[in-house]
């Protein structure tokens, strides 16, 4: 008895349809994956920028002013439009302010790797604030500080009473660049 099977044409049609479906499926997968990578970068940049801006803004808020260079003799850090050195009142063990004694905070790109943004806390001898060297991001593409007087006009860093900052992050994935940015303008509260 002759069994009834698929004809060659039918098989070819099925294979063609399957191939098209497979390609479409693959395309969906690839697109979906790249969407996930894309969006994940954006989310991670967003969270990172949120952290950076909150840290920088809190530091500037607590600041008593900008310092031209640190330390005074043989300075390692010099304030510029991409390096910020601020002084903030030192604190004692009860976390109360010690009058007229200051800790220093440096925010700048790492000299060895310009993609790394660091925040370095240098406490005074009397201060109970812990010393700290923290990487804020390793995707930095731009950091810029503008020093403004109380009326918003550009001034020398040591005469500034507020600071405008811009931070840009950049990540490369394959051929794509993912860039995001945050900025703000903060008055010193202790100046």
């Amino acid at each position: 008895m002759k069994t009834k099977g698929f004809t060659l044409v039918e098989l070819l049609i099925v294979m063609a349809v399957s191939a098209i479906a497979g390609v479409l499926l693959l395309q969906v997968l690839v697109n979906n994956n790249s969407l996930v990578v894309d969006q994940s970068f954006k989310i991670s940049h967003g969270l990172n920028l949120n952290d950076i801006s909150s840290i920088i803004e809190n530091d500037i808020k607590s600041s008593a002013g900008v310092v031209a260079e640190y330390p005074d003799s043989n300075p390692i850090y010099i304030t510029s439009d991409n390096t910020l050195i601020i002084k903030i009142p030192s604190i004692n063990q009860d976390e109360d302010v010690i009058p007229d004694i200051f800790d220093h905070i440096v925010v700048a790109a790492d000299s060895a790797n310009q993609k790394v943004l660091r925040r370095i806390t240098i406490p005074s001898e009397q201060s109970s604030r812990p010393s700290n060297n923290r990487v804020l991001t390793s995707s930095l593409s731009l950091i810029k500080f503008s020093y403004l007087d109380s009326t918003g006009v550009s001034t020398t860093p040591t005469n500034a009473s507020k600071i405008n900052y811009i931070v840009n992050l950049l990540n490369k994935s394959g051929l794509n660049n993912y860039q995001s940015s945050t900025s703000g303008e903060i008055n010193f509260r202790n100046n």
Partner: protein
Amino acid sequence: MFILAVIALMLVLINSIVLIGGALTFKQSASYSIDSTQALNLAEAGIDKAVASMNTSAGSYSGEETNLGNGTYIVSVIPKNSTTSIIESTGYIPNKTNPKSKKTIRIEMSKGVGVAFNYGVQVGDGGLYMEQQGTIDGSLYSNGNAVIDQQSEILGDVYVAGGTQPTADQEHECVPPNCSDFLFGKNFSGQNIYDVAQSFKPSQTQIINKVGLKIKKFGNPQTATVKILSDSGDNPDRNNVLASGTIQSNLVTSQYSFIDVTFTSSPTLTAGTTYWIMIDTSGNTSSNYWAWELDTLAGYTCSSTPPCLAKWSTGSSTWNTISGDLGFKVYMGGVINYIKGANMVKIAGDAHANTLIDLGIGGGAYYQSAQNITAGSLHPGSSDPQPLPMPISQGNIDEWKDQADENIYTGDITNCPSVLNSGKYVGNVTLPDLCSVTVYSPVWITGNFYMDQQSKIRLDSSYGASSGVFITDGTITMEQQNHIQGSCWQDTCTNGSYLFLISEFNSRDDPEGDYAIHVQQQGNTGVLYSNLGTIRVEQQNDFTEITAWKISLGQQIDITYDQGLAGAFFSSGPGGSYSVVKGTYQEK
């Protein structure tokens, strides 16, 4: 194929879940950022409210809980000392009981230090003479000699500063109509005019003790620093600061007057050499700044080569010439001052003066030369204390007078008025026996003021913890048992309110050397002040504080200093307003 499709769908699903999860985290983070920023702003709003409330309530504000916008702030005021309070403000989003975000700010708030009486007795260049058996329960600061007679006692510290010459070595002031304002301390038309300097050349090689600067203020600028700088190529040399002092913002008013500035050290300046007086500000907001009076004719003739100049800068080393000369006085040359005691004269605290003579000192003796002293510890070779500016400036008094000038009453007063309203009284005021007068500050009497026995002038009770002033251009005479009282109406007020009895009479230039304030024997009380005059207090009187150019105390005078005088609060006029202490802002 089906399995492949299922796997693909699963992958898509997982990716979608990852994405949604990430997006939710991002949303949460953003939402938390917004909440915490709002909570911080609420906490700062609480601080602003506390400053305003302290000023409108003369310091009696103790905190509050207020709903504002999307949340609540709670402010608490913790007194730290007589002039400073700690303000803690917490912002909650959305409410205190179940907050999503909570931020606490802590700052210190202080009354202005301009009108601060830190000593039981403060004396100007005229010095102090204290007769037998007097007691000062507090400290004494004198810019002139202190002579203390037998069996008198000072329970606090005594400082006698290195004296200054009464006349300026160099000075300049414009003559109308050639007077103009030189504004500085903020951004003007795109330029940060922060530092201003005037050069001068001393006529003698001597130490510099004090400068006077003819300045006024707009709004309430931050305290400025005054520096004496060397000259470098006709510019002030910032790297060569010879002396540094502070302009007490509260002593400066909205009208021009010479404000004395003393320095933390007294360098020697060389005759004929150019030096600079620089006022160094760090910039202010647009409504708070300074003005230095400018002579547009540039009439200060110090010498032709090089001429003396006025300059300004943004705080950098580049200086710009100002067309004119600024109003200033430079006092050169010191005078050796001393504390001279006698048999059984005791100073319970420390004694600081160039020369100490005949004293029993409980604390440390700080001097360059000493004769016949005993002390808890000896510190020979100590430098002289610096002269102290008077706690109320001429500008402060002028501002109160301007305020009083709004209501003018003419004619002598010889009866007993139950009330003296705030105003200018043209004429003499003579109060008879047993007269009680309620006063609304400021009162300004252009003539003399006389109080017969057992009278009282007192500030209206509505002033609460605020203080007031009673100013006379002429002399003040008090017979027995008169009382000058703050708003609490007790012989000795304890609520921080005082009525300051001020005489503007100038004993220093008076040919007769008359007393500005003369208090006769027995039982008078109050707070006395005379910028330029002598205050003479006869036997057996008890005062809270006396400040004058020169003071002469009779036998058995008790002066019992009240701590509240360190920060007297005036409901109007200069000084005493609460403000945030720089450098104390802290997020807890």
